[in-house]
C-alpha cells in the first residue's frame, strides 16, 4: 500500500477518500480538513481567544494540538467529572499534553469545586449520566469562557459524532434540533461562539493523528456511556460506511450544504424576550433557576454514589 502523494509506504488507508497516506501526508491531509472547516464556517477570527474543551480523549487533544500548531491562542479547560479511574486517567492525559507544550490548562473538579460529581448528579436527578454530564459541560464551558474573556469555545466533535446526532434527529424528525445542527453557533445571550473544527474528520482519523503525533490520550471508553443510543447510531453508520465508503460524509456534509437551511424556520425564537437571569448563577435561562443549578442543588443534597455502569432500557 503506497501513499497517494509520495508513493512511499502508507500507514493508513482512508476508503472514503480512496486514498492511502504515509505519516507526513496523512498529517498534512488532517491539517487541510481542519483549516477548511474553520474557513468554510468562519469559526475563528484573527486575534480570537479560544477555549478548548479538553476531556483528555483523542478528539479534544487532537483539536488542541491542531489549533496550537496553527498558531491560535488556545487554552484548554478540563473538567474532573468524578467518574473514578476513568476520570483520573483522563485528567493525567490532559495535564501531560499541556505540560509537554507549555500550554495553559484550566481545571474544574466537580466534586472539589462544585460539590457534586456526574454519577451522583445522574442518581439524584434520574437523568441518564450522559445527560447530566453534557449539561454540566455546556454550562461550565460557557461560564469559563465568559469569565475568562474568551471569544470562542472549541469542542472536539468529529464527523462521526455529528453524523450520529443527525441520524438521531432525523429518525425522530426533531426539526428544531435539525435547524440548530451547525458546526459554528454565533455568540449570543452572553455566551461565546461555539465551534467544531473537527467535523470533516472521522474518529479513526483523529485517533490516527494522536498515534502519529505521539499524543497519549484516554483510550478507554467512559464506563457510564457504554451501550448508549449515540453509540448505537455510530455502529449503524459505520456498517453503512464499510459497505459504501463516504456515506457518513455525504450524509452530514450534504445536510449542511443542502438541507439545514430548510429547518431554520423551526427554531424557537432566539430573541431575548423569553429569557431571564438564573436566580442562582446569573446565566441566561428560560426558567427562574437554570437547569444546571437545579441539578447541582439536587446532587449536593444526595449521598455521593460510586461509579457503576448504567442500566439500559432495551
Amino acid at each position, binding site marked *: 500500500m503506497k501513499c497517494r502523494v509520495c508513493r512511499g509506504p502508507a500507514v493508513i488507508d482512508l476508503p472514503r477518500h480512496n486514498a492511502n497516506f504515509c505519516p507526513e501526508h496523512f498529517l498534512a491531509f488532517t491539517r487541510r480538513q481542519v483549516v477548511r472547516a474553520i474557513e468554510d464556517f468562519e469559526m475563528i477570527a484573527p486575534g480570537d481567544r479560544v477555549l478548548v474543551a479538553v476531556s483528555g480523549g483523542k478528539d*479534544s487533544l487532537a483539536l488542541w494540538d491542531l489549533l496550537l500548531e496553527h498558531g491560535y491562542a488556545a487554552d484548554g479547560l478540563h473538567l474532573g467529572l468524578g467518574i473514578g479511574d476513568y476520570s483520573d486517567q483522563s485528567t493525567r492525559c490532559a495535564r501531560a499534553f499541556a505540560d509537554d507544550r507549555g500550554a495553559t490548562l484550566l481545571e474544574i473538579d466537580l466534586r472539589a469545586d462544585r460539590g457534586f460529581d456526574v454519577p451522583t448528579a445522574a442518581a439524584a436527578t434520574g437523568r441518564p449520566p*450522559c445527560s447530566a454530564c453534557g449539561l454540566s459541560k455546556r454550562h461550565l464551558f460557557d461560564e469559563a469562557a465568559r469569565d475568562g474573556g474568551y471569544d470562542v469555545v472549541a469542542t472536539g466533535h468529529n464527523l462521526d459524532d455529528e453524523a450520529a446526532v443527525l441520524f438521531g434527529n432525523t429518525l425522530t424528525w426533531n426539526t428544531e434540533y435539525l435547524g440548530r445542527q451547525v458546526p459554528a453557533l454565533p455568540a449570543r445571550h452572553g455566551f461565546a461562539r461555539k465551534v467544531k473544527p473537527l467535523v470533516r474528520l472521522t*474518529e*479513526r482519523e483523529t485517533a490516527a493523528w494522536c498515534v*502519529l503525533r505521539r499524543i497519549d490520550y484516554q*483510550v478507554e471508553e*467512559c464506563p*457510564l456511556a457504554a451501550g448508549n443510543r449515540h453509540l448505537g447510531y*455510530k455502529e449503524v453508520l459505520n*456498517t453503512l460506511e464499510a459497505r459504501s465508503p463516504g456515506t457518513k460524509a455525504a450524509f452530514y456534509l450534504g445536510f449542511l450544504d443542502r438541507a439545514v437551511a430548510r429547518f431554520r424556520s423551526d427554531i424557537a425564537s432566539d430573541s431575548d424576550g423569553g429569557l431571564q437571569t438564573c436566580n442562582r448563577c446569573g446565566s441566561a435561562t428560560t426558567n427562574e433557576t437554570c437547569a444546571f443549578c437545579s441539578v447541582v442543588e439536587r446532587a449536593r443534597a444526595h449521598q455521593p454514589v460510586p461509579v457503576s455502569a448504567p442500566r439500559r432500557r432495551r
Partner: protein
Amino acid sequence: MKVLLRNPRREIDVPGPIRVHALIARLELNRESVLVIRGDALVPGDALLADDDVVEVRPVISGGAR
C-alpha cells in the same frame, strides 16, 4: 501473535501470518471502528502481520456527552 484488545482490556492469541484486514474480519470488527498498531506504528489494511508480532487493535469510537 499477541493481540491486545480494549473495552474490556484483554489479550488473545491469533495465529499468523495474517493480513490486517483479515485480522479485523476474524475479530468481527468494523474497519471504521479500529486502528491496528504494531509497536508504536500504525499498520494499514494490507500489511502482513507475523506470528511473533504483538499488535494492539485500538477502538476509536467514543460515546457519551462532549
